[in-house]
């Protein structure tokens, strides 16, 4: 598709403006309907019974008492799903996560579910289900899980990516390796080498809206699902396969989504709701509690990263090497792989080697979280770069500029880069007033860079022109935070009509072809590419209609400024879309443009963040006092919402850096499954977050758009780590840098300096 609609430099009229979003008014008046805001006639209330154990085999489940309770309409266990483990391993694991089969693998793992006439009856029914467990040894820590005596979580797990293939089961599901050159040779050329271990704790996407859905399945095999999701087409496909339904017969409608950040790209309760509904032959509404959200959905990996970087005295990185261990929950994933690919992606390295190990632990299945896996790897690399710069006495920005990747650089994950924005974001940071602002007592400034791939993928759009010349764009990608505004701007631009004459809607799965999810920063990138194609098809048709109206050959008609123009010597006044549409019934019927594409060629994205923190030496509490995000957007379609993405990602990174973590007890149970103890940043924790949008066009998109959603969560962990280090003189290697960890580091530091002989 990129090649069909190549990038052309142009002056924009609509794109780049900042109108009010079309779905905004429903959201400020309480009218917008989210996952839990929808009911079906006669619906039942569903509830899920969850394992209190981190690791156990299920000896038996007795549901008879629950079934006998008046008002209970269906009770299900894994027996109500067909065993698909022989036919589709990956899907079987997703299903096993939604409903445990023979074993429970984490505290919160679903074991049974009920649907009853009301919540009270459903709660009573859950208590009547008797599950007999045989407890097994568990492991939740990433490094303990790879240690020799760790309990093996899955006896079928043999490490993939190792040659020859191992015969013994272990908790490492996959090893992946990237890099080029010869790191040993590279380290020999280095004047200074630092080696360290970095750890990051598991965080949750923390969307404010818990997972929710309403499912209705009829005995004839038709079904409907209303759900908050980042990808209703993907949910349909997976749910239909799990339930043995025809894909076409399951119609999925996406609700407004109350935050996802990757956490709503995976199914959790939807197949359960569908199975409950099928058994009861009644609609079933299933809504997670906040505790369930924390215990059973979402989280990102906990990591442990061993890293070694060497530099010359004049600041050239000669080699970088890292082993990155990422938890993936009870089943394998590709999280460490992404960490291994992204770790050194900001830099031009002659010698680089990264190894990613996916580690199974008794925690919830790891899920994508905004630029998944990149922030942890960046924490390690960017902390080291700062430390190395300090050691050789070079400015940290200068050293990054010196080593920054550019067009033609071979990336650390393999291919060469096209035009990219790391250098420009660094130059912008260097020249930013923030860099020169004075610092107060106990304050320190830090900066860090970040990289993310961005994706494209399958997209499908419909454009329909109304008889009054207004346009409806139907897209199949979920709007997570302003996409309807940006896509309306693109259609307005392409058709040459005002923004408020375009209505963008999210179609259900019955209205469009398959669309991939809103993930990988692809929503605006991919759907706009398809929308532009839809518009151009409709324009071609409208030129033909104009030719009919004027009764001239179609090659005498051109499209300009939202009008058909007749060329050559004739006096036909240009025709507007409204004028052409008004005669549609006589010139061939409705005017529409349907496009389906694979939107490949998403441009990679880079950001540089600067932050100032103040560390209280008495309490170890850290406050972010100033924060600046500089990121390449390719082309900012709606700059205000681009800024919003930058600010939101930074805020999530700040929370992760300073407070957020899953805390497991010795018993393997999650100890902080609520917003009180899993503390995300509140309004009074943060300063204003300044943004600077750079626009280095993506040559693979007609308007130069890159994705913008994810990269901004990559730098904050390291930026804050570096700022804390500059404020206190202590290198922080463990995220979150919560007050106890900072106090501990400060104490160790002062003990160490007490022991040193005085100069």
């Amino acid at each position, binding site marked *: 598709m990129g090649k069909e609609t190549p990038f052309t430099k142009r002056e924009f009229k609509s794109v780049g403006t900042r109108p009010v979003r079309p779905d905004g008014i429903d959201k*400020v008046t309480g009218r917008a309907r989210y996952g839990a805001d929808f009911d079906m006639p006669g619906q039942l209330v569903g509830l899920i019974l969850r394992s209190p154990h981190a690791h156990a085999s299920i000896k038996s489940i007795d549901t008879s008492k629950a079934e006998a309770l008046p008002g209970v309409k269906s009770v299900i266990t894994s027996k109500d799903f067909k065993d698909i483990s022989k036919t589709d391993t990956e899907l079987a694991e997703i299903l096993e996560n939604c409903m445990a089969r023979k074993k429970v693998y984490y505290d919160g793992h679903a074991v049974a579910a009920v649907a009853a006439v009301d919540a009270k009856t459903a709660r009573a029914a859950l208590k009547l289900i008797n599950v007999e467990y045989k407890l097994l040894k568990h492991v939740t820590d990433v490094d303990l899980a790879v240690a020799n005596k760790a309990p093996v979580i899955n006896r079928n797990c043999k490490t993939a990516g190792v040659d020859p293939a191992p015969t013994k089961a272990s908790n490492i599901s996959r090893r992946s390796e990237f890099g080029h050159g010869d790191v040993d040779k590279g380290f020999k050329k280095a004047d200074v080498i630092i080696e360290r271990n970095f750890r990051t704790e598991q965080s949750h996407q923390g969307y*404010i809206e818990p997972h929710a859905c309403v499912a209705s399945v009829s005995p004839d095999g038709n079904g409907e699902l209303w759900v908050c999701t980042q990808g209703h087409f993907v949910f349909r496909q997976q749910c239909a396969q799990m339930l043995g339904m025809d894909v076409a017969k399951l119609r999925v409608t996406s609700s407004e989504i109350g935050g996802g950040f990757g956490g709503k790209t995976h199914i959790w309760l939807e197949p359960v709701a569908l199975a409950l509904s099928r058994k009861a032959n009644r609609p079933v509404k299933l809504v997670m509690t*906040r505790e369930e959200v924390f215990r059973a959905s979402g989280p990102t990996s906990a990591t442990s990263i061993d890293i070694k970087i060497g530099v010359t005295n004049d600041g050239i990185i000669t080699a970088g090497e890292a082993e990155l261990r990422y938890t993936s929950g009870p089943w394998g994933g590709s999280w460490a792989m992404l960490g291994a690919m992204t770790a050194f992606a900001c830099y031009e390295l002659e010698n680089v080697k990264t190894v990613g190990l996916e580690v199974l632990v008794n925690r919830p299945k790891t899920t994508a979280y905004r630029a998944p896996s990149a922030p942890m790897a960046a924490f390690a690399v960017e902390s080291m770069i700062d430390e190395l710069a300090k050691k050789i006495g070079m400015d940290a920005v200068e050293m990054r500029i010196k080593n920054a990747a550019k067009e033609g650089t071979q990336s650390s994950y393999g291919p060469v880069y096209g035009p990219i924005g790391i250098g420009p974001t660094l130059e912008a940071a260097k020249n930013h007033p923030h860099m020169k602002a004075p610092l107060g007592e106990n304050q320190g400034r830090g900066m860090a860079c970040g990289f993310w791939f961005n994706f494209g993928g399958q997209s499908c759009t419909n454009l329909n022109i109304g008889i009054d010349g207004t346009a409806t764009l139907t897209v199949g990608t979920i709007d997570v935070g302003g996409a309807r505004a940006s896509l309306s701007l693109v259609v307005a631009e392409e058709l040459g009509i005002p923004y408020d004459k375009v209505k963008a809607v999210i179609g259900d799965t019955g209205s469009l072809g398959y669309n991939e999810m809103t993930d990988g920063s692809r929503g605006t990138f991919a759907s706009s590419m398809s929308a532009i194609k839809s518009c151009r098809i409709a324009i071609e048709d409208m030129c033909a209609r104009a030719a009919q109206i004027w009764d001239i050959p179609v090659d005498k008609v051109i499209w300009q400024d939202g009008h058909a123009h007749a060329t050559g010597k004739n006096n036909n006044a240009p025709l507007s879309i409204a004028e052409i549409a008004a005669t549609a019934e006589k010139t061939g019927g409705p005017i529409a443009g349907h496009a389906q594409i694979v939107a490949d060629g998403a441009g990679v994205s880079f950001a540089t963040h600067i932050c100032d923190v103040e560390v209280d030496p008495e309490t170890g509490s850290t406050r972010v006092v100033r924060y600046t995000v500089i990121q390449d957007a390719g082309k900012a379609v709606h700059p*205000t919402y681009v800024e*919003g993405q930058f600010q939101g990602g930074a805020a999530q990174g700040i929370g992760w850096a300073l407070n957020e973590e899953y805390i497991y007890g010795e018993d393997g149970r999650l100890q902080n499954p*609520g*917003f009180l103890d899993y503390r995300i940043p509140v309004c*009074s924790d943060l300063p*204003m977050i300044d943004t600077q949008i750079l626009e280095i066009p993506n040559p693979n998109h007609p308007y130069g758009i890159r994705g913008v959603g994810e990269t901004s969560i990559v730098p904050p962990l390291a930026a804050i780590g570096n700022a804390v280090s500059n404020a206190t003189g202590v290198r922080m290697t463990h995220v979150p840098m919560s007050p106890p960890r900072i106090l501990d580091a400060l104490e160790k530091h002062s003990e160490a300096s007490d022991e040193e002989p005085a100069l």
Partner: protein
Amino acid sequence: MAMLVSTTINGDATDFSCEADETLLDALRNRLSMTGVKEGCGTGDCGACSITLDGALVCSCLVLGAEAQGRSIETVEGMSDGEKLHPLQQKFLEHAALQCGICTPGFLVAAKVLLEKNPNPTESEIRYALAGNLCRCTGYDKIVRAVQDAAAQMRRA
């Protein structure tokens, strides 16, 4: 055993029935279809269910439906005056102070209470007044700016 509760909601006399152990949040959402009041946690930590009860800002998930007997409730659904949006609603739109929008009703109600008490709050006062409302999308920057702008407009009016 359901009980009958008589209240005034957004200026209208409203009766609803609810169980003795039912929260006001559940009663508003499930009995009266007032789904503008959101549930993010059910434990008073996120503020998505913020409403006012006799003018005081509360998390409706921490109040029993029965406690609303004889009292006056205001929610996001009652903020605009006919076709005219409340300045806070308008400024939230103009400043893009919402992304996903699930926290927006709670923020609007909390900000309205703040501006009624303090028409000219500092940035810091705004941040502390809204610290009981969680937003995961925006980083709060544009929310604070929207409240500042709305306050300025309301002072001029």
